[in-house]
């Protein structure tokens, strides 16, 4: 079973309840992440230097390697911003869910 965690215009991240993994969909392409890989991916996206990208004479795209599935993403400036939104939204939702679950966990022992 999959639950959508966050969605932007062209991308979304779903959580797979069975495998504790995440499915990122972007323009009909799918990428699977374990949580640790999602953390690493967020770190990569956040570390990109947008100003340098704007100022460079080369076309403003960034090539990002995803070692977890050995694939590449080629992202334009706009798409990088969208991914930032996607990942921030995802991690905020995860943190919120974590806080809610924490309250529910008190009921694990229902005596």
């Amino acid at each position, binding site marked *: 079973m999959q639950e959508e965690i966050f969605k932007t215009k062209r991308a979304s991240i779903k959580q797979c309840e069975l495998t504790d993994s995440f499915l990122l969909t972007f323009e009909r392409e799918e990428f699977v992440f374990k*949580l640790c890989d999602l953390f690493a991916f967020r770190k990569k996206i956040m570390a990109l230097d947008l100003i340098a990208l704007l100022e460079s004479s080369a076309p403003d795209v960034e090539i990002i390697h995803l070692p977890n599935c050995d694939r590449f993403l080629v992202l334009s400036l706009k798409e990088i911003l969208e991914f930032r939104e996607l990942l921030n939204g995802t991690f905020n939702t995860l943190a919120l869910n974590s806080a809610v679950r924490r309250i529910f966990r008190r009921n694990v022992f229902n005596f």
Partner: protein
Amino acid sequence: MKDVLRRHHVLKDEIVNIINRQIKMEAHSSAAYLAMAAWCDVRGYDNSAEFFFRQSEEERKHQLKLFHYLCDMECDAISPSIGDSQHEFGTLREVFEKALEHEIAVSDSIHEIVGETRKYNDVATEEFMKWFVQEQIEEEYVARRALELFDLLGEDKIALGMFEERILNVEYNGRD
């Protein structure tokens, strides 16, 4: 929805970051002590060299203890890059002065981590850090004691010989 965050990423980002900073600090300490050991070794202060070689290994163990903790909690442990260490010292005493300074800085940093764990109510990490708090009490004590030997003996040739005889026996045995 399952709480994947709590299941697979036990610690808060802020705690992970500050422990990674400590890992770097321990790695740097290990390297710094190695440099001190080399300085002593080539000048014939064999026991002081041995003292710092042992210290260097201790620091490496501290680094690994923290490193394993992050791995065990399924958090990102970052293998640190290490900057240059100080290789030049004026006197043997100066080397030990630096060692004490170093340990005090490490203690401050450890205490800061404990403060952070309290801020985030991370009881487990606070408990884990207790070992380091105690360790720093001992490390500072030893460094301070070593310096006091200089006060006691002086720094002429004979005094330095006597210092060499005593340095490996300096240890902490706090009252039980």
